[in-house]
């Protein structure tokens, strides 16, 4: 075993095998389980119905994020402000009831640590390199940016993990996506992952766990790596991984849930040993030249519909596959776009800066840098910044970023998933367009009839100023 060179994924997998079945299926131990209010109620309900308990509440952390309004949650006297949407309120109340009932730590809606689970996990040091991390949310792949094997699960699997702290899994195939070279000015981690999505297509990663490698990935900050890994699911991959290095360790060190003292040193030694061995092979390798990546934007209703901001809306005939031609026709119709139209001529009415992909402090700094001494265009009706957590919000305020956003005509909100998927009141109205730093441009994703263009925080900010999708490099 020890002599065979292994990939990062294979090493983490091997370290978590509880039992291996004859057919190759493994019972895999789960180190960290994040729970939010949308995909957990039915799991807790099933545990209750069968008289089962949570095996490791200490390895489980509950955080409400999807339904919470991003407006004030407490009145001047500190009392909770009732949530207007009855079903949202009911789902949040279920989590507040279930977590203590099953002995699970809950970060409440008014706690400064509250935020989007995929922002909170790394921020609290709950998510660690080399760990297996699951959550009933497909963007769990995000934590792979730390070198964790992290993936989304369904509610039945949430129940399975709560009851057994394990999952029954088949090992995935491995894919290396190597991005070599230096990113150009104005090109961010989000542009990298949008570009990769355009290359791999929406299903190119199905059945694979992707390891992102290469100098351009290594040069990214840890937050940038979280952004890349976050969208692994948008190319169909179960998980994304980036080898942990000194930057990762510096990021994790000192965080509340992170190991301390001698245990920290032992952990770092182990984390260093996890990198893919020389000579290990992947089932598939895709190589991308960093110099080919420019600020990117989606034009359609699948994350694979990516074009450079300098490009034009494609025509259905540009695609060889007849079913893709048909899908492109439907997308163009839904998006209200004409083939050949320059992306930088597409007017927008909304700008959303937030989501588990792009709501960390570096994202807000990048947007604020563009917006400083500028204001949103008159045709941009709604521009909003939703920090990824209360701690991100506080840090941004300490740096004066909130003032820049407010002066630019943006709203400055409380943390949560917000308009990424519009389960709370933050929605894009039907027929309106949004430059959004989120991760999905599906039909109706940001509200019924909403039209989403996925972009980086810098591009979103530049687009707000221009009133159209904009090339941040032109703003100077």
């Amino acid at each position, binding site marked *: 075993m020890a002599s065979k060179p292994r990939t990062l994924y294979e090493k983490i997998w091997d370290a978590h095998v509880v039992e291996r079945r004859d057919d190759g299926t493994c019972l895999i*131990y789960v180190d960290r389980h994040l729970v939010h209010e949308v995909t957990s109620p039915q799991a807790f309900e099933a545990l209750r119905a069968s008289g089962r308990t949570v095996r490791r509440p200490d390895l489980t952390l509950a955080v409400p994020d999807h339904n919470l309004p991003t407006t004030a949650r407490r009145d001047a006297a500190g009392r909770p402000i009732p949530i207007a949407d009855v079903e949202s309120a009911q789902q949040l109340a279920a989590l507040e009831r279930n977590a203590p009932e099953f002995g699970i730590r809950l970060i409440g809606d008014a706690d400064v640590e509250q935020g989007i689970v995929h922002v909170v996990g790394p921020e*609290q040091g709950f998510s660690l390199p080399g760990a297996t991390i699951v959550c*009933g949310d497909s963007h769990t792949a995000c934590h792979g940016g730390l070198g964790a094997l992290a993936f989304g*699960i369904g509610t039945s699997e949430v129940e399975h993990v709560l009851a057994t702290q394990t999952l029954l899994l088949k090992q995935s195939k491995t894919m290396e996506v190597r991005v070599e070279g230096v990113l150009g000015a104005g090109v961010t981690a989000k542009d990298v992952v949008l570009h990769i999505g355009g290359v791999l297509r929406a*299903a190119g990663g199905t059945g694979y766990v992707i390891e992102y490698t290469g100098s351009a990935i290594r040069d990214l900050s840890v937050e940038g790596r979280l952004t890349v890994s976050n969208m692994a699911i948008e190319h169909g991959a179960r998980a994304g991984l980036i080898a942990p290095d000194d930057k990762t360790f510096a990021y994790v060190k*000192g965080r*509340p849930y992170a190991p301390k003292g001698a245990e920290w040193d032992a952990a770092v030694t182990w984390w260093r040993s996890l990198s893919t061995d020389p000579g290990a092979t992947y089932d598939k390798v895709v190589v991308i030249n960093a110099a080919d990546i420019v600020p990117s934007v989606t034009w359609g209703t699948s994350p694979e519909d990516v074009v450079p901001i300098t490009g034009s809306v494609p025509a259905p005939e540009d695609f060889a596959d007849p079913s893709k031609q048909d899908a492109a026709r439907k997308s163009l119709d839904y998006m209200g776009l004409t083939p050949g139209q320059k992306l930088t001529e597409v007017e927008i009415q909304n700008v959303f800066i937030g989501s588990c992909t792009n709501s960390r402090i570096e994202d807000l700094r990048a947007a604020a840098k563009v917006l400083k001494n500028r204001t949103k265009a008159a045709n941009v009706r709604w521009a909003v910044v939703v920090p990824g957590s209360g701690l991100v919000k506080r840090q941004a305020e300490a740096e004066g970023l909130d003032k820049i956003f407010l002066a630019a005509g943006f709203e400055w909100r409380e943390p949560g998933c917000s308009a990424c998927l519009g389960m709370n009141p933050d929605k894009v109205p039907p027929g309106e367009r949004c430059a959004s730093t989120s991760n*999905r441009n599906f039909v109706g994703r940001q509200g019924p009839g909403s039209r989403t263009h996925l972009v980086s925080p810098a591009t979103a900010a530049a687009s707000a100023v221009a009133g159209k999708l904009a090339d941040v490099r032109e703003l100077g």
Partner: protein
Amino acid sequence: MEPLREVGGRAIPFGAKNVDTDVIIPARWLKTITRDGLGRGAFETLRSDPDNLFDSAEFKGSPILIAGDNFGCGSSREHAAWALLDLGITAVIAPSFSDIFSGNAFKNGILTVVLPQEAVDRLMEVAKTDPITIDLEHQSVTTPFQDRFTFEIDPFRKHCLLEGLDEVGLTLARDVAIARYENDAATALPWLARTGQSLGEHTA
């Protein structure tokens, strides 16, 4: 879970590729805290068209759905599986499925059948006028016109579906092995076996 041996009847010749979970069940339907009643929101956007297949006299209540590549891509919401079940769909045939969706489907007793595009195209044709039959035991899909396509399925999943087994119960029976792993991990990987400190702010 109910045992599943055979699914037969009319199949909805849907055929679309990259059908994401927001199409199967939009986010606004995710606010429920039970598993029931999601059929009303299933394919809501498509069904706002009065001529949609799902509500047509011919296909309403059909137990089988035929779709294109990458069915169920997008979010992890198990509501997608619950919504299909509530519509009466217990089997989906497609050239490929998203990993998370096929897991969710299986755990709710929905059979996902992977067949090559040519076979799916032929079944789409037949489904317009005639019923089809999926036999899990023999891993085959047949039509009244002597078509017979065989499919692969994970043996464990097949066994669980045929017997209607509860996976949580099966794993709980492996308690000794899990406890042994936990003991070993407490020594070998203590930083994973337990969490560091308590909640709070980053002080480094």
